[in-house]
Structures are given as C-alpha cells and as structure tokens.
C-alpha cells in the first residue's frame, strides 16, 4: 500500500468510515509514521472517533476532535486545530468526514489547501449491505452528492461490505461484482478491502486491511434477524 500524505474517508453514513480511519491511522503509526487524525464529523451524535481516544493515544496518534464531541452540545463546530492537517506537511493526516453530502460540507474549507498540495487520497467507503447504497448506481449518486458538497473528487474506493456480527467471508466476496461495477461507473480503482480481523484472515484476495472494531459501551447479546423473540 502506497500512502499519500493526506487520506480522507467519506461515504454514506454507517458505511464504516470511522472504524476504517482509526485502523488506517494505527497502521500508519505502526509503520513508524507521525500520524494525526481529525474527526470532521458534524453529523453523527454517537459512535465517533473520540470513542477510540485511548487506543489512538497509546499508539502515538494525535487525535483532533470537535470540542463538543460525545457531549450534549449538538453543534456542528470544528476545532481550529484541524487546519494543522493541511498546513503541517511533516505529518501524515487522516480525515474522517461525516456522513453523506451534509457531512462533506465541512470538508469544503480545507479543499483549496488540499488541492494546492496535491498529495491526497480521498476514499469512498462502500457497504453494499446498507439500504440506501444497495446498488452501485445508488452508491454513485451518494459519491456525486459528496463531491458536489465538498468540491473535492474521490480518487479511490474501499469495499467495506459487512453485516455487523453476521459478516462472513462470503458477505465480503459477494460484493465483488458490485465493487467492479462501481469502479467502472466511477472510473476509480479499489484501494482496499476491509473486514473485521477474523473475517479478513479468511480472505484470499490482495489489499486486505483487517479491522479492529471500535469498542462498544457494553456487549449487546447478538441479534437474530426476522420475526423471532429477541433471545428465543
């Protein structure tokens, strides 16, 4: 994997951007790079980069997070420090962009600097199991909306197709055709396939990035789909 100085993760909300951004930051740090990750999510009230603050700190990754993240202040405000990612060219910067076009508006203010430097990768994270991106055409629509909102074009795709706890290697591989179609529709290469570490281990394909998932508040007993009792 060749790394650009700036890596941006965007996509439909719930596509897995935050988990991938955190894992990618940890991977760069493990390769000995000085890494800074910025949480630019102005949309999502829960489940944020900040939930992984301890893990990131332990790995030496600097976290820039909105002042009010994980509090009751529902303000779409970004920290001034986030500018460091585009101005300090000695670091590897990772940006976790909020969901959909609404979240991508926040990125717009950094775009002139990103384009000027020209050393970035903007990755569209796709999950074919999400209801509003069930077809490559639906995903392409979301891609265009995000590009229009932030003024920056995607350069790569990631296949993060998963069904939560029920993900199997077949879930991931089953999206191959979907990803090829999205790749040909958008003209963009597939940068990587991401999956929970145990699933990733069973995947015999190139460019797999195994994920350690963000810790949950508490373990919720697993859910059986369908019209059955919750724990029958």
């Amino acid at each position, binding site marked *: 994997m060749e790394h650009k100085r700036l890596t941006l993760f965007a996509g439909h*909300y*719930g596509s897995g951007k935050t988990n991938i951004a955190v894992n990618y930051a940890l991977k760069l740090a493990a390769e000995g790079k000085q890494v800074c990750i910025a949480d630019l999510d102005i949309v*999502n*009230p*829960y*489940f944020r980069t900040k939930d992984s603050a301890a893990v990131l700190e332990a790995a030496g990754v600097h976290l820039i997070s909105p002042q009010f993240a994980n509090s*009751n202040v*529902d303000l779409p405000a970004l920290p001034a420090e986030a500018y460091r990612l585009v101005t300090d060219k000695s670091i590897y910067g990772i940006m976790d962009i909020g969901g*959909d076009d609404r979240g991508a508006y926040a990125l717009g203010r950094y775009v002139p600097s990103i384009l000027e430097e020209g050393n970035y990768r903007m990755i569209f994270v796709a*999950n074919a*199991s*999400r*209801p*509003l991106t*069930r077809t490559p055409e639906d995903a392409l629509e979301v891609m265009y909306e995000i590009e229009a909102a932030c003024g920056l074009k995607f350069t790569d795709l990631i296949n993060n197709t*998963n*069904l*939560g*706890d*029920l993900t199997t290697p077949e879930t991931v591989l089953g999206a191959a055709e979907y990803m090829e179609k999205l790749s040909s529709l958008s003209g963009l290469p597939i940068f990587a396939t991401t999956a929970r570490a145990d699933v990733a281990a069973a995947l015999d394909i190139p460019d797999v990035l195994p994920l350690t998932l963000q810790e949950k*508040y*508490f*373990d*919720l*007993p697993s*859910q*059986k*789909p*369908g*019209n059955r*009792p*919750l*724990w*029958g």
Partner: protein
Amino acid sequence: MAELVLMKGNEAIAEAAIRAGCRHYFGYPITPQTEIAAYMAKKMPKIGGVFLQAESEVASINMVYGAAATGCRVMTSSSSPGISLKAEGLSYIAGSDVPALVVNVQRGGPGLGGIQPSQSDYFQATKGGGHGDYRMIVLAPASVQEMASLTIKGFNLADKYRMTSMILADGTIGQMMEPISFEDAEIEKYEKPWALTGHENKRKHNIVNSLYLQPDALEKTNFERYERYKVVEENEPMWEEYMMEDAEICVVAFGIASRVAKNAVVAARAEGIKVGLIRPITLWPFPTKALRAAAVKCKAFVSVELNMGQMIEDVRLATECKRPVTLCNRAGGMIPSPDQVLESIRAAQKGE
C-alpha cells in the same frame, strides 16, 4: 437464508413504514432521530409518497391528523422535546379516533435536556401526555430488527383499533446498527368506512372531529372508546420472558435496558442466583398478567430503567405491591452497566 441488510434503528423504522404502506411522512428534524426524516426525504419522492418537513412539530402532527382522517397510513417522528410539542395534536387524534403512527426516539430530559439516550418519556407515552382521557398503544423495541417489526405491527394495530401507535425507542437503538430482514413482515389491511375519501353523493358524508357540543354525547363517546381500549388491554399485551421458569428474582426492563439487563441475568445465574427477566414489548397495554403471575413465585423485583423510576410504578401496580420492587437506574443520557444491574440483583437476592 433471508436477505439481510445492515441498518441503523432509525432507518429500519423508515423502511418498515414504507413497506407497511405509509406514503405520508410529516416531521421536523431533531437529534437523535433525524435519520428517519433523512431516509424518508430520499425515498418518498421515488415511490410517489410525500415527505414534508413542516415548519414545526405542532404543524407536522396536525398534518398527520389531517392525512389520518382520509384513512391513509401516515406517520411522524421526533424526540422527547418534540413529542411534548405534538401533545395537543396527539389528543385531537385520539379524540377523533383516527389511526396514526408516532415515533419517539427518546433523549435525556426534562426540558431541552440532552441528545444522549433515555427512557424518561415512559409516563408521557403511557399515561397521556396530551389532555383528556385517552390511550396510545406504546411499543418498545429492543433491537434494530424490532424497530422494523414493531413499526409494521404499530401500523396494523393503529388501523385495527383506530388509535395512535407510538414507537417508544431511545437514542441508542435509533443510532446503532444491526443486520435485519423484512421477510416475516405481515402487513394487515383494514376497511375504513369512516374515512374522508369523498362521498360522491353515494353515501352520507363522514365527519372526523373531536368537538362535542353536548356533554352527554361526549361522555357516551368516551365510554365507547374505553370499551375499545378494554379489548386492546385483553388481546394485545406483548412481552418476552428469559429464564423465568425457576426465577426467585424478577428483573423487569424494556428497550435497550433489557439488553443490558440480560447480560446481568446471565452473570447472576453464573453466581447461582435464580433470576429471570420479563421484557415488556407493549408498555401500554402493560403485560400485567405476566407480572402478576411472577409475583406468585418471585420474592423480589428489580426495575431497570434509563430514568428516575417510571415503569416501576406499573410494576408495583401489576404485582399489587405483593413483593418489594427496587429501582436500578441511570438518567440524563447515561446507560446502566451490566455490573450495576448485577449489583442490584445481588442486593434483591439478599433482601436488601
């Protein structure tokens, strides 16, 4: 294997509503339920439905009232402070006996409160909220799958009894993601001879109204309405039991609290404590019979809630205060840990 999709709880509600035949959504955004409106905004125009962001919660609930009077399946969604604003409309809808679905993805209160998950609108949902004598069918999902299946059930029950069904969820279930399927969805259809669909000079015109000029006529309507509520109380309570067969301690919890409580029950069983769990799925009608039966064999009850103790009153009523009921709670957007629930179970076992 059925086709699975990975959904947020809020999205599951929206998709289920569309599958149940809802083509009219009126709302106003508020965290943590905004994904419902966002999903509807995206989907409704593609399927010939109406998504309308009203100028306020008050406007949106009155649009629901109007659409419901025509007999179509209609819904709105909000979170705690927004539901308070809708309270007048909820009372009018009940007073006019039209069916509607209202979603409350609760956040911490009172007042503007916060945006983190809560169950502190239990009283508001089950005891009224608006003015006058009325009831709503209150459904409490504990998983993303149930966000979908209880939404469909809610539309069915609303049509069947000409009532409002409320989905009483919380921010956690609204925001979390789980794989679900829609294969078992059962969409029921009911005749609506009372609906305002245009009489075309072929029948007497229908009237939907909650104003009565004669008090005796209003009283009669109230009595008749409560006869209908009695049928609901008799036929529609839903609950789930876990390890209750030999239980001496009974934990009662709904929604996300029940998922936490289940972990604690498993941990307590490992310590040899005979404990079980009753999870009300309908909060009104409350599963009174299940609680009353448990009071015969259990020596103590623990009510686990994300509020200052609201359902605990219904637990005491249902068990007719025969056994001690203790409260295990967090409030203001916090969630009890399994360890906190386990500690409460241990205390109940010791008779504390």
